[in-house]
Every structure is written in C-alpha cells, then in structure tokens.
C-alpha cells in the first residue's frame, strides 16, 4: 500500500466510507503516483545536429553503413513525407511539433564492436538494471531474450547463440541490414508502406534502430523475445523500426517495453512495427508502454505516434496484439491486422490508462480480406484526472471475406468527473456472408461493489484495485506470464499506487 494512500485513508476514516466525495477523492489520490523511471543516465552520447533534410538522412544511413537500397528507401520516404500533412482527425490536441528542432540520431558513445555484454558501458547496464531489464547473463533464469535500444541504437541483444541454434534470428535491425540484407529488402515496408501515413513516412526516412526477428519454418521460438526501448536524451526523437517474420508453421511471442526520463520538453517517438505471418504461423506481440507522461500540469512527456501493423499472409496464420498503455503525454496508436490468408486470425487486447492531462487515441483496425477470417477486439480504457481516452477502431469486411467473423468489445471506466472517454468504432461491411458484432459500455467504479467489498473488511485501496483488476482481467489474461506481472505492477504504480 502506498504511503500517500495511508495518509488519505486515515484522514478520511472518520467519514462515511461510501460517501461519494470521499471515495472520489481517495481514488484521485490513489491515482497520483509519481513516475519511477524518470532518471537520466549521465552518459556521453554522440548526437548529430538538429533538423531534417536529405543530408541528415544520408548521414544517418552513412553512420549505419547501410546498403544503397535502404538509403533509397529512406530518401523516397522523405520525399513523400514532405508532401504529406500531419493528420488532425484524432481527438487529440497538442502544440505543433517543430520537426526541424529534433535530433534524429543519438547514440551512446562506446567501443566500435561489442563481443560480449562485459564490454557494454557499465552505466548503460546499470540503467537497464534500474529498469529491471534482465540484460546480464545472471538473469538467464528469466528465459527471455532481450534487445535493448537506448535512444537511437541497439545496445545489446542477449541469448543470441541459444536462439541461433534453432535458426532464430534476433538482432537489432541495423545488424540485420548488414547480415540479412535479403530479408530486409524483401519485407521492409511491405506491411506499412512508406507512404502509409505521416508518421510512418517520417519513420521510414529516419529510423535509427529497432529489432529484427526471423523465425524459420516449423520452429517454435524456444523463449520469449523482448525489446526494451529507452529514450535518454531530451531533444532527440526515437524512431525505431521492428520487423518480425514468422515462416510457415512457426510461432513466437514478442514483448516490448518502453520508458523515458522526465524532461519538461516533449519528445517525439514515432515507431513502425511490421509483422508478417505465413501459413500456420503465429505471432504474439505484447507491449507494456510506460513512456514518461508529463507532469500534472501536462508539461513534458512523450508524444507517441506509432504505426503497428501485422499481415496474416498465410492460411491459418494468427497475429495477436496485446498492450498495456500507461504512459506518454499523447498516444496515437492503432495496432492492426490485415487478414489475407484463409482462416487467419487477428486479435487485439488492450488496456489504456490515462491520467492527469494525458491523451490517448488508440484502438485497432481489423481488415478482413480473405475468407473465413476471424478477429477479436477487447479494449479497456480507464481515464482519470483531466485525461482524454478514445477508442478508435475499424472493422472492415472486404468483398471476398465470406464466412468471416468479428467480435469487438470496448469498455471504458471513468474515474473523476473531469476525464473523458470516447468510443469511435467504424464498421464497414461489403460481404453479406459475414458477421460483425460490436459492443461498448461506459461505467465508473461502482459504489455498491466498493461498499460491499469494504463491508467484508477489504480496505478501500485494495477494493478499488480488485475492481480495476477485474475490469482489465480479460486483457491481462492474454499477456504472457513475464509481462502479466509487469503489467500488474505498472497499473499498481499508475493507478493503484494501489489500483491494479
């Protein structure tokens, strides 16, 4: 139980428990838990000058010793980006971003080549240690292979040898560009084309690093793969790119985590994630996003504009997104599935929590193209403080999607009367032989249930925590074990201090 809560609890214990106001205040206090990953690592970094132009892109490409096809890809994307307009349809309000005032490449200075983790700057390891990320070999027990990305570059990837035995490729995308250029050239930009949207075009032009996963035919990845993104400097944007390819009959579970220090400026994070699943393959992509969300007055925080999309290319392939979104000043994110293969399956499970002045416009797109495709959407939004939490989703049945099905459920929970919860589901069907169901509800923490729990001797904080936990249960059940604990902890920090 958080200290802050105990004080409030005691101060209020003489009053009626089920008094509306008291409970509301308590919940609000409980919600105010400080951000724990806000420290800055003091490390020498190599940055390039601010601004964005062709020369900068050439410089990034040159620094990363990229082949020509990639430079061309970047330049093409940049040209497209210049012609595009920043989208304004989302229910978000933010200051105009000056794209020339951002550093597009920042990397911690270290030795040229790292052969083992021992050669990584200890300060960096310390940073990841503080974040609870198992980079060091002692932490083998957790059985999770990690790719850690610090600002613009990947620092280390663990368990590579073990993975290589199974033929699994797990490395930073810059390495993949050098060692597996054929795969990159074949798949990069095939799911999210450079011209897809404003932020995807920007990412395609300047992406610095990210993770690359390749699971060969018939292999079930022996351990969960994980990448951890850390923004350290305040003036550089993070533009990572993740590409996961699951060959026929393979399967992989991939986890992604993110944190950033507290700055009073806004930092831009515009990532692109592309997933490709071939026949009978399955990819499970889980995110626990905990970027710095800005302070109570809404100063600082990460602008998180992310394009995530998976393509179920093969028959009976499956892509499952699960996410816990707690951070970022602004979240603009719609992990989507293109269901091309016959009987392919798309899933989306999400918990989005906003507090203070945070704004989240998130949801998913399920595009049913092939026949007998299925998708499930479960989205839980919790809005507290003065925040704004919107679900925006698209379900589309194409003309060939006979016998396809979709089920969506989005529930919102409101804490306090200043927060807003919006739901914008777009549903489009061109196929009579398909079924779409959507339902949404809005509620708040029920006084009756709270009173009942308290009358059974469960303390206020725990009761709220149980109820929020129950509210999110459908989604938490979908998270991998390693993450479920972290997600629980995170909600505990954010809402629970207590709630979770």
């Amino acid at each position, binding site marked *: 139980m958080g200290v802050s809560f105990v004080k409030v609890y005691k101060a209020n214990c003489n009053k009626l428990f089920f008094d509306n106001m008291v409970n509301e205040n308590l919940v609000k206090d409980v919600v105010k838990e400080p951000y724990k990953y806000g420290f800055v690592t003091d490390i020498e970094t190599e940055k390039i000058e601010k601004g964005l132009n062709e020369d900068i892109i050439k410089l990034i490409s040159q620094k990363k010793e990229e082949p020509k096809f990639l430079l061309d890809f970047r330049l093409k994307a940049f040209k497209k980006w210049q012609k595009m307009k920043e989208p304004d349809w989302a229910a978000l309000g933010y200051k105009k971003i000056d794209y020339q005032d951002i550093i597009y490449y920042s990397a911690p200075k270290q030795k040229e080549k790292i052969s083992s983790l021992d050669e990584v700057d200890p300060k960096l390891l310390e940073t990841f240690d503080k974040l609870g990320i198992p980079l060091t070999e002692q932490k083998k027990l957790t059985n999770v292979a990690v790719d850690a990305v610090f600002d613009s570059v990947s620092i280390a990837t663990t368990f590579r040898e073990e993975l290589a035995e199974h033929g699994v490729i797990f490395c930073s995308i810059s390495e993949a560009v050098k060692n597996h250029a054929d795969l990159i050239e074949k798949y990069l930009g095939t799911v999210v084309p450079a011209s897809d949207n404003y932020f995807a075009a920007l990412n395609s032009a300047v992406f610095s690093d990210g993770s690359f996963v390749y699971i060969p035919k018939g292999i079930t990845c022996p351990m969960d793969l994980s990448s951890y993104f850390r923004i350290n400097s305040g003036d550089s944007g993070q533009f990572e790119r993740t590409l996961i390819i699951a060959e026929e009959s393979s399967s992989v579970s991939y986890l992604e985590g993110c944190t950033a220090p507290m700055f009073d400026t806004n930092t831009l994070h515009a990532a692109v994630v592309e997933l490709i699943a071939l026949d009978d393959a399955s990819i499970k992509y889980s995110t626990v996003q905990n970027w710095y969300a800005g302070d109570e007055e809404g100063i600082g925080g990460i602008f998180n504009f992310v394009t995530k999309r998976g393509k179920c290319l093969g028959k009976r392939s499956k892509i499952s997104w699960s996410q816990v979104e707690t951070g970022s000043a602004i979240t603009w994110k719609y992990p989507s599935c293109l269901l091309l293969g016959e009987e392919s399956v798309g899933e989306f499970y999400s918990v989005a929590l906003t507090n203070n002045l945070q704004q989240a416009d998130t949801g998913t797109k399920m595009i049913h193209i092939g026949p007998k495709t299925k998708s499930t959407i479960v989205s839980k939004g919790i809005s507290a403080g003065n925040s704004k939490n919107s679900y925006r989703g698209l379900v589309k*049945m194409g003309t060939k999607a006979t016998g396809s099905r979709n089920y969506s459920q989005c529930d919102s929970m409101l804490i306090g009367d200043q*927060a807003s919860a919006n739901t914008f589901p777009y549903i489009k069907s061109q196929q009579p032989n398909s*079924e779409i169901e959507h339902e949404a509800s809005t509620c708040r923490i029920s006084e009756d249930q709270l009173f009942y729990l308290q009358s059974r001797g469960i303390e206020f904080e725990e009761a709220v925590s149980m109820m929020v936990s129950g509210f999110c249960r459908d989604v938490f059940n979908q998270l991998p074990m390693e993450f479920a604990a972290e997600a629980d902890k995170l909600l505990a920090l954010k809402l629970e201090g207590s709630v979770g």
Partner: protein
Amino acid sequence: MKIIEKIKANKSDDNLTEIQKICLHKLQSSPLPNPKSELWRLSNKSKLSNFLDYSVNEKDSKFDIPYPKNSQSTIRLIIGDNCQIKLIEKNYSIQQLSEDELQKYIKEQISFFKQNENWSDLLNLSLSCKNNILGLKINGSKIPPIEIFSHASSNSLNAKTLVIFLEKNCDIELLQVNLGKENSSLTQSTFFCLKENSSVNHGVVSYGENRSNLLNSLNVIQQKNSAYNLGSLHFKFNYARFEISIKQSAGNAKTNIKGMQITKKDEQISTYTKIEFNGPNGFLDQINKSLADDKSHAIFEGSIIVPKIAQRTDASQLSRNLLLSKLAQIDTKPQLEIIADDVKCKHGATISQLNEEELFYMRTRGITLTEASKLQLSSYFQEIISFIPISKDKWDLLDKLLNEN
C-alpha cells in the same frame, strides 16, 4: 449544380426573406459541405450533385400526390399548400406562429449553426420561401393526431420547412410524411421545441419514387421532463440523408428513437444522429436498423455526447444491419463522447445476413424460402413500424416494404 451556382452568384432578390438572405450569406463562402469531413466523407458525391441539379420549385402542383384518404379524427396539413390553421377548441389549440415568432426562433437556431454540420438546414432555409414554411404552436391536451405532409414535384428541387412549438404539458401524436417524386429533390427541415412536461410520438415516413432525392433534417430541443419518441422509416430514394440532432437542454428528459432505412438497387440512404445531453438524468434509447440489398449503400453514424454536467445519464444506442447482397455496402459508426463519470452508456452494432438456421427451420415446416425470408424480414421491420404513430396503417408500410421492388 445549378443551385450552387445560384448561391455563388448571390443576385440580390427582393423577394427573399431575411432568413433566406442570412443563410445564403452563410453559404456563400463555401456553398458545399467539406467532402472530407466525417459527416460527408461517405456521401456519394455524384448523387449529391444530382440532388442539386434541379431548379428550385416554389409552387406545388397540388393534386399529383396520392395521399390516402383522411379520416375525420386526424388533422391534416400539407406544407406549401397555403394552409391556414387556427383551431381553438375547449381542450387544445393549434395556431400558426406569427411571422415574428417564426423569424426570431429560426434566427436563434441559425446562430448555432456550423457550415458543415448544419449544411442541410442552411440550404433548406436559404431556399425555403415564405409559402413553404409552416410554423405551429400547439397547446392543450387530448389533441387529435396530426399528419403533416411534404412532397416534391418532378424535375425540381423543393424546400419545405416545419417549425413546431409544443407548449408545457402538451401531448401529441404527429406523423410526418415526406414523399419524393420521380426525378426530384426534396429538402425538409424540421425544428421541434418541446417545452417542459410535453411529450410527442413523432413518426417520420419518407419514401420516394424512381430517382428521387431527399435531405431530411430534424432538430429537436427538449426541455425538462419532456419525452420525445421518434419512429422513422426511409426507403426508395436514390439518395437520402436523414440528419437528427437532439438536444436535451437541461437534462431530465427522455428520448426514444427507432429508425430504419432500406436501400435497394444503387440507392444510398444514410442516417446521422447527434444527441447531446446538457443536463443530468437524461435518458436515451436508440435503435437504428439498416437493410442493404443489390448494389446499394446504407450508412449510419450516431454520436452521443455526455458533457460533465450530464451526470446520471443513461444512454444506449444499437445499430443493427442486414446485408443481403454481395455488392451492397454497410457503414456504421456508433460513437460515444463522455466526460461525466456517473453515467451508464453503451452502444452496440451488428452486421449480418438473415439467420440461416431460422430459415432452415421454416423450410422444414413447408414454408418456401421466399416466404420464410419475408417472414424474417417482417419481424425485423415490425419493431420499427409498430413504433411509428397513428394512421401508419393507412400507408400499408409493411406491405410496401415487403412487396414493392
């Protein structure tokens, strides 16, 4: 688009009323709605321009519309028919609004209009001449059912406007019928103001003929403790838009909406609803059904807005859709925007075809496939039709829906 060119040209015409001038002026800078905006993005551009292609008709040829026989117990009014009404009975009174009252109210409404959101109303008011505006003030109790008709004439664009003030404690049943004619466009705007404790059962039935178009807009303001029940049906229009805006100005009011649209051939019919709760304890129950067949396109977009002040709002919205053909399309977007925390809001949407198991069951009992589908459809339609008040029987709505092609 003759109309738009005319609006752009802005020839000052002395015959125009003040309201027409204000609306024309508002439309002048951007005479068409923004095609990229959420409200207009799915609207078929060529159909809309076809809508605007006719020249404005201010006089009606009266007798070319076959209205069913009037029963003695109902009051029948036809907009544009120079109807004068002043009924003062023991229990109730129905009077025409004076020009001043009418102008004051409409002007007040216009001041809230946004070019894009209320484009249909602006267009209507800028084209609707004095003859085609009917304003009514209704007071009292035990009022006989009222029927109000608007119709279009072939090869022309017709604009009709209806304003109704419902005084306190007043209770009415009103059926509004909009009829389209072959190759015609009709814009109908209705403004309804429900004072405290009043209640309305409102039916809106719109149907057209070959290639007729309709822009139907309904603006309702509900004061405290009022109840507004709307049953609506739109079918057989080449292009039709039904825009409903309901404001519960101080909450504590009840709204029930049951609407249906049926599209066939290459028709496009859309329903846009916006329901705002500006006070606590509001109630809404809305269901919208669509049926799309052949190459047609049915659209539903409904938004529910619950600001901070609207605590204890209970709102539900359901969109149910039947997609019967491979070339037809359905778009539906129910949406919630909620700030108040002590609310119960939910929405749902489904799209499917006729239930195969039920069809199979009926066929095993010797009912032919066509009959079985008709039975299913009639139960689908019946829920809405039974909600449309009075004299609907005269119109044989179910029969029209099931048997006409």
